[in-house]
């Protein structure tokens, strides 16, 4: 039923990828096997996959939540970068404060800055009618420029010689690993936020109102719903999730804000949200899948000498197939 298009798309993607890899003179079946092995084949692979899934499920919410309000936002990468940068500033300013308080404020800073950035797209759409898909991607490029300007300028730690970075957040404030695993606590944060987003969107009056505004803005206006404010809120919450992803990457992976933050998780989130049909719980499974594809990249590179872009090709094929098989869905098209 609703899973059929997904299964068909996965199958077709595997076939297409195998054909493509074979056409380039690489062993096709080995490549497919390595994707499976690199993603889910060992404890190490699982840990790698789960660490990647954590930020991806959050950036996917940056697509999924505005989609509920009828908006197609694809600029999560910018919200992630600026949210991460804002979060990295908190421990620098509040050095010596209690750990939990600082981490909480880091999350808040990332959330507010990321949310504000995406809310700008929602505002342009509602106030000026500017297409939010284009504006959000433009804002992602602007965000990257602002990020580089600040990190290589006034926020640069003079000690970071080869790679411009902000001052380190300090070992005290680093988010550590979940006991018994080599996966940081960010995964738990991500899962909790996804569940929270699902509850908010499916079980509260607010979520229902956002759905009405997204499904039929005119009808929503007629029954007196504040359509503009609902759009803005959906964008703010989505952008906030992406900003939180940036905060987690800073606090758990990099230890400061530098250009490595922009590793493409924002773009991976778009694919994940579409694969999950913008469902906040489905996003978790999708993040596992796309995180797994990303995790298999180094194995493909090491064993078969495939270019690192192989995982991008695989993601692109999956995205195209998913949309093509949307035509099998009898429950009607996704509006966005």
């Amino acid at each position, binding site marked *: 039923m609703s899973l059929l298009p997904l299964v068909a798309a996965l199958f077709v993607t595997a076939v297409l990828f195998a054909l493509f890899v074979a056409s380039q003179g690489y062993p096709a079946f080995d490549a497919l096997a390595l994707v499976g092995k690199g993603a889910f084949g060992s404890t190490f692979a699982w840990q790698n996959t789960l660490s990647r899934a954590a930020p991806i499920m959050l950036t996917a919410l940056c697509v999924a939540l505005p989609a509920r309000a009828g908006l197609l936002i694809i600029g999560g990468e910018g919200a992630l970068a600026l949210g991460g940068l804002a979060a990295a500033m908190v421990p620098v300013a509040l050095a010596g404060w209690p750990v939990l308080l600082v981490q909480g404020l880091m999350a808040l800073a990332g959330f507010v800055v990321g949310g504000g950035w995406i809310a700008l797209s929602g505002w342009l759409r509602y*106030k000026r009618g500017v297409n939010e898909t284009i504006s959000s991607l433009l804002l992602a490029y602007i965000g990257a420029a602002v990020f580089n300007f600040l990190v290589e300028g006034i926020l640069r730690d003079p000690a970071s010689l080869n790679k411009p970075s902000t001052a380190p957040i300090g070992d005290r404030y680093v988010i550590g690993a979940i006991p018994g695993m080599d996966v940081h606590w960010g995964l738990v944060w991500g899962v909790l936020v996804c569940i929270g987003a699902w509850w908010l969107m499916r079980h509260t009056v607010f979520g229902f109102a956002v759905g009405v505004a997204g499904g039929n803005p005119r009808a929503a206006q007629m029954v007196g719903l504040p359509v503009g404010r609902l759009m803005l809120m959906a964008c703010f919450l989505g952008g906030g999730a992406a900003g939180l992803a940036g905060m987690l990457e800073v606090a758990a992976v990099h230890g400061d804000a530098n250009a490595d933050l922009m590793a493409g998780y924002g773009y991976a989130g778009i694919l994940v949200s579409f694969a999950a049909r913008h469902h906040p719980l489905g996003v978790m499974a999708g993040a596992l899948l796309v995180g797994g594809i990303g995790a298999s990249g180094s194995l493909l590179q090491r064993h078969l000498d495939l270019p690192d872009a192989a995982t991008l090709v695989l993601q692109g094929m999956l995205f195209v197939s998913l949309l093509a098989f949307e035509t099998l869905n009898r429950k009607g098209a996704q509006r966005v």
Partner: protein
Amino acid sequence: MSDASGGIAVGSLLLALLGGAMRVSTPFLFVSLGECITEKSGRINLGLEGTLVFGAMSGYGVAYLTGSPWLGILAAGGSGLLLGVMHGLLCSLPRVNDIAVGIAMMLFGTGLAFFLGKPLIQPVAPTLPSLVLGGWSSNTQIQEALRINVLLPIGIVLAFALRWAFVHTRWGLALRLVGDNAAAARALGYPVIPVRIAATAVGGFLAGIGGAFLSLYYPGSWNEGLSSGQGLMAVALVIFARWDPVRCALAALLFGAAGALGPALQSQGMTSGYYLFNAAPYVLTLILMSMSWSSGRSLAGAPGELSLVNR
């Protein structure tokens, strides 16, 4: 004395902007003309960013292998055509959204280009020739500013030709009818879906050529950071130009000038705000979009079937 030197700096800055506008605007021009054709048919192809990157890669590869930049241009157009056909066919399936397919094609095209382009980062391909229009002047800056690439005049002629063809030719009218009112076109016996696929394919062809300009003229090499949103800005530019090819050409020059602002200021010795000035084209696009779009009202000149405008 200081006034005079300030004046010279402004003058050479303007010259650098003019030269930059003509240099940087060509990919904008070709992508926006292509997108203009596609949007006239009632569809939007956001995937032209991916087409641009893929065209840059394939054009560079073929130019390197054959030694002819013109064959490279042709190959870039051809690969753009294929990506366009793919977008056109996918969007023709029932219940498939053209904007979403565009996003997918953007990621697919860039990924594929990065994969296939890995061996092309080192080799040096022959570049396109340029036309020297500033030979009358002894000022090297003026000569430099007026050295234009051969694709720019071709693109400008194409813009006027398209504007004429949209109004005065049979296929131009068919294209606009399909884009404005699919039901009416169907009633008159025009094949709506094939016309849209063809329009997307031609759009992809032109966008591919725009990409080849990046790798074969300016900057003139292939690397993964070659395009950062030019394809997407060109899509926005079409809306600002109100679906008129000649206005697309003017807007492309404006965007080129904005894109040249960062490097021009840098050559004047301003390095501190480098990244911010590089963001100028994106900011300009946003401002122009919010000026030309306005909530609730329909856009003058917009094709009636375009999902981008009346959702």
